[in-house]
């Protein structure tokens, strides 16, 4: 019982008399007496909680008391380190170590796991542990955050991260969950950290005594080093002081220690006017934040070079082909040509004059940095510029920062919402005054890879437009997830539920780091009411989706009993719409087909006489026009796409990054160099573009088929062609 309400008091700690103010804890009194009591859950800048019990002392009570919370009293006699106390502490270390990986990540990285070092100092070694280890981990490790790794097995539930998050930073994300031996920390309602409302301030990681929360350094990369060899970033990288970063509003509320740990992951660079910062198609792993100056952001003008002009009278005369604008590629049902090209920056580029400006306070290169997509555009300093170049952990910190989010949203609403919405063909007619109405109502929401944006069966309450990243649309069919589409930037989803006023018909999942624009149901309906032509088009789209869905459902049903179809399905042939097959019983391997293809396409063949075999046929390496084309995932400028027909085409604003070629599971896309033409983006000479089979679409039949002297080459619809052999036509069955 406390007897005095104020004033100093004297007590004895391990035979040392010490006078302390009223209200001092035993732990602090000992500290003032020059005695350090070992502790794990207590830090000077946090409210003590007394949960680890390492700091227990004999204060004359029945049981030992946690000195970090127990208040000193006048005349109290405290023993901090008697043999029985040491024994208790050592068993406690042993208990904690029995479920703790030793060495944990922190111990491996920096040899400062407080549990392991304290235990070792007390002579308690992991190898000599007498307790049975935890059988099942309390939670699987969580690697979803870009900045921080979570290893629950190393956690000792000291609550330091919880207090760091809530008391120090007021972010209120972390709390305990569960009970007893199965208690653990949780982010929000036990989301993966990367999906939670965590702002990546780093305070929890800095507070953690063990390897439970550790800094994810981007291994093997320091921005100081890579600038030497790379001609595009030949200018010098300057270090940025942590104080300088913390002074920027966009880093407000971030732990300084955390930024120091990531020194080298963010640097400052200066650019002279006219200097190129990044070039379209290049690979990269960094994002840029403009501190001072303006930049031009541009891509080489849309040029025709992927499709080649031909003459009606035979392919042998196409030895010389001429580049021409690709106007006839407009598909049925698509009323307008694209107005804007989407790039990895807070603006879209006008199709006809693909150049725009960014200014101080803008961020670009997010997708390259977070998801390693190639650069979607060239950025050139318009004036002298100062920029921060950063790796993805620092970008993540910035993207999640509340101040930066607010600014980003304001910029988006003010500058980009209009062009972004209208760059989607069916919304192209939305008027400026309506955009003004939407401006304050839309929300920008981020999703981590794998996070579900909307779930099949949930009430539909909003419409989504993709600002950054790729979204996978899937449906549950007969217990398995069926992918319906991969939507890129500019893609939209959530229409069906809203239009039909039914629950969500599909699950939409973030494939990589995704940011979507959310338009709430009432605003969406208002838009349809105001613009009837949009309603008409959307209803057409919805009907089309209905049809496709039915088809997919039935096809899956077919898959159920697919024993004779097994090989057909295993080779993915059912997903192809058009296969180039060579009847090996007729084929003499004369290679006329390959030559014909090369002749038809500037001397570069788009066909290889090689591939998988099905029955007596060789499935040649040539575009299959898949129903679910993986090649479309990731294109930084959205130039590989399918319109309303199911053919995959490569638009002429391709930046030649090669991603689609890497994505195609069948090796059917190749990258070729072409002569540079039209408006120049900076360098002279060749330019790389992706090519794939275009079915020689202006001719009666493909050159390869036409050229085969043995009637061995055929372009077929596989489901139809093989129907007899398989005993069923998968397409017919679907209808």
């Amino acid at each position, binding site marked *: 019982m406390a007897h005095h309400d104020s004033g100093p008091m004297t007590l004895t700690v391990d035979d040392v008399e010490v006078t302390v103010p009223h209200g001092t804890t035993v732990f602090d009194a000992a500290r003032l007496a020059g005695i350090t009591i070992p502790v794990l859950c207590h830090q000077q800048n946090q409210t003590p909680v007394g*949960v680890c*019990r390492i700091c227990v002392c004999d204060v004359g009570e029945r049981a030992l008391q946690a000195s970090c919370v127990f208040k000193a009293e006048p005349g109290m006699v405290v023993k901090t380190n008697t043999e029985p106390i040491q024994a208790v502490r050592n*068993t*406690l270390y042993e*208990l904690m170590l029995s479920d703790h990986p030793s060495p944990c990540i922190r111990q491996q990285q920096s040899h400062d796991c407080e549990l392991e070092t304290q235990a070792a100092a007390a002579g308690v070694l992991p190898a000599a542990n007498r307790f049975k280890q935890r059988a099942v981990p309390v939670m699987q490790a969580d690697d979803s955050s870009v900045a921080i790794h979570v290893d629950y097995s190393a956690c000792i539930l000291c609550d330091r991260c919880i207090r760091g998050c809530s008391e120090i930073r007021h972010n209120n994300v*972390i*709390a305990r969950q569960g009970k007893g031996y199965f*208690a653990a920390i949780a982010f929000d309602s036990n989301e993966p950290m990367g999906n939670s409302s965590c702002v990546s301030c780093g305070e929890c990681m800095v507070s953690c005594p063990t390897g439970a929360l550790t800094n994810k350094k981007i291994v093997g990369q320091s921005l100081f080093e890579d600038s030497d060899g790379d001609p595009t970033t030949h200018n010098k990288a300057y270090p940025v002081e942590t104080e300088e970063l913390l002074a920027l509003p966009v880093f407000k509320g971030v732990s300084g220690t955390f930024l120091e740990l990531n020194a080298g992951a963010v640097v400052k660079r200066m650019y002279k006017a006219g200097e190129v910062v990044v070039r379209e198609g290049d690979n990269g792993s960094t994002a840029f934040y403009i501190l001072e100056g303006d930049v031009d952001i541009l891509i080489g003008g849309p040029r025709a070079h992927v499709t080649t002009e031909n003459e009606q009278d035979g392919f042998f005369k196409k030895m010389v082909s001429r580049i021409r604008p690709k106007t006839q590629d407009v598909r049925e049902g698509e009323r307008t040509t694209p107005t804007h090209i989407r790039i990895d920056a807070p603006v879209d580029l006008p199709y006809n004059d693909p150049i725009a400006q960014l200014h101080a306070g803008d961020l670009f290169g997010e997708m390259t940095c977070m998801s390693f997509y190639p650069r979607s555009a060239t950025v050139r300093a318009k004036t002298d510029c100062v920029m921060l170049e950063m790796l993805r952990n620092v970008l993540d910190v910035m993207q999640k920062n509340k101040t930066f989010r607010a600014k980003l949203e304001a910029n988006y609403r003010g500058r980009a919402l209009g062009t972004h919405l209208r760059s989607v063909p069916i919304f192209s007619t939305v008027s400026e005054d309506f955009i003004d109405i939407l401006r304050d109502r839309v929300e920008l929401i981020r999703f981590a890879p794998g996070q579900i944006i909307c779930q099949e069966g949930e009430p539909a309450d909003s419409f989504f437009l993709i600002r950054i990243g790729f979204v996978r649309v899937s449906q549950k069919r007969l217990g398995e997830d069926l992918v319906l589409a991969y939507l890129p930037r500019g893609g939209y989803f959530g229409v069906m539920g809203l239009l039909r006023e039914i629950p969500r018909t599909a699950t939409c999942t973030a494939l990589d780091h995704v940011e979507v624009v959310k338009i709430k149901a009432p605003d969406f309906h208002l838009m349809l009411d105001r613009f009837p032509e949009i309603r008409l088009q959307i209803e057409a789209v919805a009907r089309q989706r209905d049809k496709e869905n039915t088809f997919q459902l039935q096809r899956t049903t077919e898959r159920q009993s697919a024993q004779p179809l097994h090989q057909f399905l295993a080779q993915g042939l059912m997903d192809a719409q058009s296969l180039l097959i060579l009847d090996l019983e007729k084929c003499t391997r004369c290679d006329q087909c390959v030559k014909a293809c090369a002749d038809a396409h500037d001397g570069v063949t788009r066909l290889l006489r090689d591939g998988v075999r099905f029955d007596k046929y060789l499935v040649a390496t040539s575009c299959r026009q898949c129903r679910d084309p993986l090649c479309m995932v990731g294109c930084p400028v959205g130039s590989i796409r399918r319109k309303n027909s199911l053919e995959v085409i490569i638009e002429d604003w391709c930046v030649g990054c090669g991603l689609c070629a890497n994505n195609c599971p069948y090796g059917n896309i190749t990258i070729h160099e072409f002569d540079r033409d039209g408006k120049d983006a900076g360098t002279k000479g060749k330019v790389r573009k992706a090519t794939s089979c275009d079915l020689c679409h202006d001719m009666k039949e493909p050159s390869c088929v036409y050229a085969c002297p043995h009637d061995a080459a055929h372009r077929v619809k596989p489901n139809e062609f093989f129907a007899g052999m398989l005993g069923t036509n998968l397409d017919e069955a679907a209808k």
Partner: protein
Amino acid sequence: MPLPEVLVNIEPGRNKLGVFEDLRHVQENIGYVPTREIERIATRRGVAVKDVHTVASFYPHFRLKPPIRVDVRVCDDMTCHLRGAHQLQRALARQYASASEHVQVRDISCVGRCDHAPVVSINEHYHEDTNFRQIVTEIDKELVAPRVEGHSHPPRSPEERGIAIQCDPYSSPTDHYSIYRSLLANKNFDEALAELKGGELRGMGGAGFPTFIKWEGARKSPGDEKFVVCNADESEPGTIKDRFILQYLPHMVFEGMMIAGAIVGAQKGYLYIRHEYELQTEVLNEELAHLREIGLVGNNILGSGINFDLEVFVSPGGYICGEETALMEAIQGNRSEPRNKPPRTVNSGVWGKPTALNNVETFCHAITILGRGGEWYHNIGRNGSPGIKFVGVTGNVRNPGIFEVPMGTTYRELVFDYAGGPFEGREIIGFAPSGPSSGYLPASLLDTPLDWDKVKALGSMLGSGAVVVCDDTSCMLDMALVASRFYRNESCGKCSPCRIGTQKLVDLLENWTLGINNPGDNKLLKDLSNVLRAASLCGLGQIAPAPIQSVIKHFPELMKRHIEDHVCSAGICFAGSV
């Protein structure tokens, strides 16, 4: 579709008061608590999502995932274990192994119906005195058509059993609350306290702390806002007496709380009851409605200028909620984790305000003393032990039940005279004077009288009077393991000694019952017991080693046979039945 909001008023600064009602409302409507509802509750209450999730995930009552069609939970704590619950659970698990999509068989901590062991909960409906065939029938019924409503039985009434309750000073219901009425009129609080002191009223929840000291402490503690809390969260295996008192003497419990409120100067009383006592909750709410009707709660009661309101607070579950500060945390809408003490609850209890917290029986007996006089109460006890006590006698006895007995009665009388003694041909080998916390005593100590100090002198405790009797079909080492499992299951996890240590204790004892012994095990158990006792934050962890330590102390021969010879005379251990 979104749920209609629950209209629990949100008190500024106490945003989480009532959060359990929000969660319950969601669960009753949807069957579980999905994330989006957690987010909605957080938004409405102006707290962070993690603040709601942390409590929703703490209490076993709340499901965060869609429920399985038939959730079968078998109690396997002390008494039920003695009555074959372990075998029952294994048989049920086998029976429904191929139907695991629809039927889940798992354990549940003691639900306070030990006089009708074994107890099985099917979709939160409690089946007493049950057996395999009956449960299979019930499960099959539930599979076809889920039960809509229905309660389990109340404890058998005094009338049914042909006994009179001695502690009730009122001969007729019309006299109820007359003690409170006269106290409000004369305001002689000092005299009332002196009467309690004279009757030597002690905390009947198990601690035996003199009640008048507690009430005086809360009375003297400065503050405009004070609370009275009745701890009706009896959750210790074997403890069933409060359920009886709440069912048949609710007027005494409430009146005791009202008297305490008047004495300490509190404005609000919470009766914190475990959610498994639905029937008793109903009884209490009816009594409370009656109190409101006759104007004995509210503002300016009977013109005395005294304000006092009562609330029945339904616990979302867990033994740890019975720890006084953990209980207060629960009332505040937090995780039920005990606080570091001091401060003591009389100075800093609910919301940090002075609070007088007592057990159901303590409030009840306060009325006995004030009605019949401290002298009567003091003298009713036998052999120099003052007072009376409600005691539950369960386990391997013929007539398990709740008995009101004078203090000083011996355990032998309780077991043989009140509870009918052992079954035919069986012999009692040991007993727990008060559930797992008291540890086990050998049958040779049955002549010990019911007396706080005399039981304490044996290294045990009188506790809440939850006598659990073990005959020669049971194994004391197995019983120690069962008790250890209970503590492991019910540890809140706040402090590391208890969170990790209780599990490691179970690991060690499981090995022993399987015949796996290591040379250092005795030292290991000693170290582990020591760290639990000395370093745990609250009584749960501190008492967790008691069962095994008591078995080692009082049953050395049995331990030796187990450890050295791997022989279990009851045939329970080493047979793979654990």
